[in-house]
């Protein structure tokens, strides 16, 4: 097994470990479900939780925000205790610092030449107010003040090129042009708020 394979395996193992750690930590303090059936609550006590869907215009949305409709997880019912915040921050910082290190290791000054040049960017992604699909915006209650949303992501990729070029480059490309190498293509964090009649100004970063 060469160093490259060890590196790939290591990064995937680290990611898996962090996910398991996160899962374990979030499950702390949650009551365990018993194996046996329990009597259900009387129907009268059941409350249907619904949120008004914002009346958005259908198409301002057509910005370059990508076609994918994200499958959102259920809203969390876990409160953000200080300890949980610290753990989440550590995991997030690990991902982001991995991205930053990868960038430093691979940074090449941009050239006004053939597109296959620079590596990856730590970007601050967000969907604009007129996004194609903004789940958080759709769930925004009509009556309440718009909330801030925040998040982040890290994107690892390995492109196996059967031509095995010595320079490890996908020719004439502006994105994902590193081949035969594991790469942190992008990592980022964002915070945003949607403009509304209640709050007409909305920063997005």
């Amino acid at each position, binding site marked *: 097994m060469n160093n490259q394979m060890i590196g790939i395996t290591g990064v995937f193992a680290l990611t898996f470990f962090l996910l398991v750690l996160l899962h374990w930590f979030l499950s702390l303090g949650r009551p365990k479900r018993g194996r046996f059936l329990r009597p259900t609550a009387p129907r009268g006590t059941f409350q249907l939780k619904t949120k008004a869907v914002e009346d958005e215009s259908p198409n301002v949305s057509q910005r370059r925000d990508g076609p994918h409709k*994200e499958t959102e997880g259920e809203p969390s019912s876990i409160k953000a205790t200080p300890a949980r915040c610290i753990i989440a921050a550590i995991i997030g910082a690990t991902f982001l610092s991995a991205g930053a290190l990868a960038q430093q290791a691979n940074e090449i000054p941009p050239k006004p030449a053939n597109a296959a040049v620079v590596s990856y960017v730590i*970007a601050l992604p967000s969907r604009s107010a007129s996004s194609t699909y903004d789940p958080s915006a759709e769930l925004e209650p009509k009556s309440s003040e718009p909330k801030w949303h925040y998040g982040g992501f890290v994107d690892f990729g390995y492109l196996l090129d059967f031509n095995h070029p010595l320079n490890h480059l996908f020719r004439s490309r502006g994105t994902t042009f590193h081949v035969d190498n594991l790469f942190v293509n992008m990592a980022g964090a964002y915070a945003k708020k949607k403009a509304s009649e209640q709050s007409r100004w909305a920063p997005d970063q």
Partner: protein
Amino acid sequence: MFGFSATAPTFDGFKALRHLGPTNVSYLAPVGKGLTVQGGIFASLIGYDSLYAKDNFNYTRPWGADFTPYLMMGLNASYSFNEKLTGAVFVINGYWHLANANSVPSSGGQLAYQASPHVTVKETVLWGSHQTDTSLKYWRSLSDTIVERKGDRVTFAFEYIYSSERVVALGKPRALMMASQLPIHWTINKRWSATVRPEVFWDRDGRWTLARQTVKAITTTVEYRIPYRWTNTILRLEHRWDDSRGPDGGFFRGAEVAPGVIGLTPTQHLLIFGLIFTFDR
């Protein structure tokens, strides 16, 4: 790299700006049904695919996306005329937001029409100078047409991009770029999905890629998602076949054929593993 130009100089301060994605402020003006004005760096109005793989069907982006703006820097205003028709106009610093071809801003507009609950048609145009000579006859024009049908399980879209400009050179030749794609996305269930994307890209004069080439490509992706509370882990396995022909076409292959020169071959197969972790609150 995205944001930079192959032919124009770099924008001052690019080292800081290149690390920024959409960074802007919006204002919902009380005009009619609400006019949204946005200033700063914002997601480009041109193109079907996002800069961020997490928001796309495939892990790698199509050729047409890589040679049109992912981000724009300037101002835009959008307005919904009715439930079906929305319009937007924009003024930006140039074709590439990190390039500084000249001091003349570029501008454009977009109309999006929802023909039916499932079908959307969008047309975007861009017009502006991308050379040091800012005479009108040398301005670059771009048209981007997208038709998308979103079903419950299957989404397919057709995109056609056309761009052209007269080059400041002997004989004032006209440079031309065309790109088209037809992505088909099938959501199998909550976790699994698959996408096939055939595409074609033509840089007739090498003005966009610096290589006169015609590229055909087919990208096939299988995706598995693990949603957990406010996190999402996306695993993608992708195969990509590219075929580049023309006077300067081809992909790098093997070792150097001369000092500092890697050999070229017309076809390329890629097998791609992607892992994307996101959280959103």
